[in-house]
């Protein structure tokens, strides 16, 4: 299946969960990333059980703490 | 539109681009919708650019008068935007 991850089209096997995608995309600080699928947030407790389907648009939102 | 009464006068002959337009714009801002102003400006760049810029802002150019001393009088009717 084809999904869009942070604006880029990617090929993944069907049945991919958010947790697996986070590992595959080598997301930095995976415990603290916010994930949205098709412009809806996914609760971090649901990462294991949420499976992606063809055409999904996934965004990772990262904590960015700097400013000084 | 030949009949008009001038409500205000402005003189922008003492400044150069872009202050000519800035000064004209500020003078226009002070007017109420429909009021008429006569703006005195120099030949050359001011008379080439200022009338066009004022028109682009949505105001109505009534007339451009050529004075004896090579300056111009631009007669403008204020059109309130919003």
């Amino acid at each position, binding site marked *: 299946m084809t999904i869009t991850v942070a604006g880029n089209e990617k090929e993944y096997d069907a049945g991919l969960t958010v947790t697996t995608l986070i590992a595959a995309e080598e997301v930095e*600080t995976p415990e603290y990333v916010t994930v949205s699928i098709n*412009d*809806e947030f996914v609760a971090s407790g649901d990462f294991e059980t949420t499976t992606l389907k063809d055409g999904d648009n996934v965004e990772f939102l*990262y904590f960015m*703490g*700097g400013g*000084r | 539109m030949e009949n008009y009464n001038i409500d205000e006068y402005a003189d922008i002959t003492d400044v150069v681009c872009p202050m000519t337009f800035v000064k004209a714009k*500020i003078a226009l801002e002070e007017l109420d919708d429909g009021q008429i102003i006569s703006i005195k400006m120099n030949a050359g760049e001011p008379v080439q650019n200022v009338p066009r810029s004022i028109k682009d802002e949505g105001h109505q150019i009534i007339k451009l008068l050529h004075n004896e001393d090579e300056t111009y009088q631009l007669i403008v009717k204020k059109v309130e935007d919003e």
Partner: protein
Amino acid sequence: MAFTNEQMERYSRHIILSEVGVKGQKKLLNSKVLIIGAGGLGAPVGMYLAAAGVGTIGIADADTVDLSNLQRQVIHTTADVGKPKVESAKETMLAINPDITVNTYHEFVLASNIADIVKDYDFVIDGTDNFPAKFLINDACVLAKKPFSHAGIIRFQGQLMTYVPGEGPCYRCVFKSPPPPDAVPTCSQAGVIGAMGGVIGSLQAMEAIKYIIGKGELLTGQLLTYDALKMEFRKIKLPHGDHCAVCGKEPTITELFDYEQAVCGVNYDE
């Protein structure tokens, strides 16, 4: 209020713009913006807002200028090292534009004082470098119904979003609560390219100006991210958090509180 000849000339490039004009410039001169953090983000924000003629600028920061700040905090100079950042920032802003008023708050923003500082301003800039402060600013602005610009920078990356009461999600809708102290690197540990503050801080200043003059579209409901190495800007749509603890339908946060600071964040910046 009529413009003086000096104001006419100083703000001429604004007045010429049809979106600003005389009316917009008067709005700027009558506006009040609070900048929390006089660091990498706060520096360009303060300088551009001062230059733009934002009539009253508040600047809050408890720190003093350190040599390591000067790589990015362009509002301070080498001669300012050791001086309170708010004083150094005020001097620079007034040197750029003596037409404005600068209020200084030489203190950390905390649950105990932030509401009192924020209440006098029309728009707030988050230029802090730590999560406790970022969440506190969010909560204080949501509860006081003040619009604010969030931003964060690290390494070669930056992000920002704008909160306007009733018009979109807040920072806490996206990021529920701060990560544990030191779990996510901040730029004092991770480093940051100096110009990043310039890019993102200038965008924050732009949001404040657009909000004040009432023109254009703000970054409400969107997170703008910038990756300097890829030279890529992206706008990520943010859903509204109906269940948000502070701005949701049934909020559980109804008064302000402080989160624990990271141990190595002692040099933090608001």
